[in-house]
């Protein structure tokens, strides 16, 4: 006959996992049970030999390197995954233009779409948008007056973005700031929409192309809208609805 305690309680005692009350109970039991004493000794010696055998096996250094590299690769892939989205947008934007204008414009559009891919990775715009929402990062110049915001950019960039206050249309101008996209400084206009913020990134249009109608998109739950007008490229981004963002785009395009 084996003592039933040797089957379970003894192990909890050995591992220091019994609460004070049960540990005390078991110690009392030990005083009268030679079987449990013998078993406890045996278990302790087994544990000692397991420890002295040094069975723990550490990961080889090469494995850590491999894992780091793989994670870095996964990141790069994720960062480039927006490219096909832009291609798709290129095609649908071209279709919109085809409907609106002559096929002349279509050819130009398709030919000039490529620079957009390089200049405005949506990911980068989203990152900049998220960054701007950190406390104190939204505006460098805080003013609802377009005649304050516009001159503020003077001398800070090699271009002046068109600035309009659209408070009457439900998009009050909140201010402006400088941000960095693709390694170059760009102007950002900040608009409000009820309790939301909208960042409008503006940079000179190098394509010398005809104006392009607003092209919407969604990524990571953010709405964005890209268009060209007044010799500038615009990318608006926010968590407002797509129609709201489209309205703003049209107002700024006028």
């Amino acid at each position, binding site marked *: 006959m084996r003592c039933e305690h040797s089957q379970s*309680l003894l*192990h909890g005692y050995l591992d220091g996992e019994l609460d004070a009350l049960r540990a005390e109970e078991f110690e009392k039991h030990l005083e009268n049970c030679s079987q449990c004493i013998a078993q406890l000794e045996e278990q302790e010696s087994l544990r000692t030999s397991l420890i002295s055998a040094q*069975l723990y096996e*550490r990961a080889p250094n090469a494995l850590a390197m491999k894992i780091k590299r793989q994670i870095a690769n996964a990141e790069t892939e994720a960062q480039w995954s927006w490219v096909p989205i832009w291609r798709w947008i290129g095609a649908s934007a071209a279709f919109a233009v085809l409907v609106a204008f002559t096929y002349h414009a279509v050819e130009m559009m398709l030919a000039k779409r490529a620079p957009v891919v390089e200049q405005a990775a949506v990911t980068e715009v989203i990152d900049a948008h998220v960054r701007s929402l950190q406390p104190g990062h939204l505006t460098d110049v805080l003013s609802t007056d377009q005649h304050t915001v516009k001159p503020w950019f003077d001398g800070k960039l090699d271009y002046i973005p068109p600035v309009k206050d659209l408070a009457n249309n439900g998009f009050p101008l909140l201010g402006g700031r400088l941000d960095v996209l693709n390694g170059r400084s760009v102007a950002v206009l900040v608009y409000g929409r009820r309790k939301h913020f909208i960042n409008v990134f503006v940079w000179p249009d190098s394509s010398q192309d005809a104006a392009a109608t607003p092209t919407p998109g969604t990524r990571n739950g953010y709405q964005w809208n890209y268009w060209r007008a007044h010799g500038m490229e615009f990318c608006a981004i926010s968590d407002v609805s797509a129609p709201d963002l489209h309205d703003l785009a049209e107002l700024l395009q006028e």
Partner: protein
Amino acid sequence: MLELDDRDRFERLVMPHQDAAFNLARWLVRSRTDAEDVVQDAMMRAYRFFAGFHGGDARAWLLQIVRNSCYTWMDKNRKAEKTTEFDETIHAGGRSESPETAAVAASERQRLMKALESLPARSREVLVLRELEGCSYKEIATITSIPIGTVMSTLARARERLQETLRGAAGEPGSRKEARHEV
């Protein structure tokens, strides 16, 4: 895609437990080479799931994923696994005693290693987590999905099996009394 500070957090919280991940995998799949593959795979899964990790015990969280990867691997390689022999050349030596003591220690180590490897996976994992990794019962319960109330009895059974195997091996050298009947 993870945001940059998530990646940073992953490197700070999860990557330091690579040894724990490897040790568990090595004892479950019983091969260093296969353990490397399984851990690499498990780490990438952990990385993808990291957004779902809301603080707490990062080691237990990672080991849970590693354990699942090991069982998936063992299911797939069940037939091959039975014939996988332990590679003694990789594990030899690394100690600084006299040649005689070293030889005795090495053979004692071999004996324990073989005994541990011959246990069923469910016994192996609790012993490795408790005796090698030093996990608490609570952590063992989290990692292995055993109810916390039965961790103690599972460990008791595993230890008894190990003792029996060691006794058997001492009595008739080379015997595989408890040999791999369950995975």
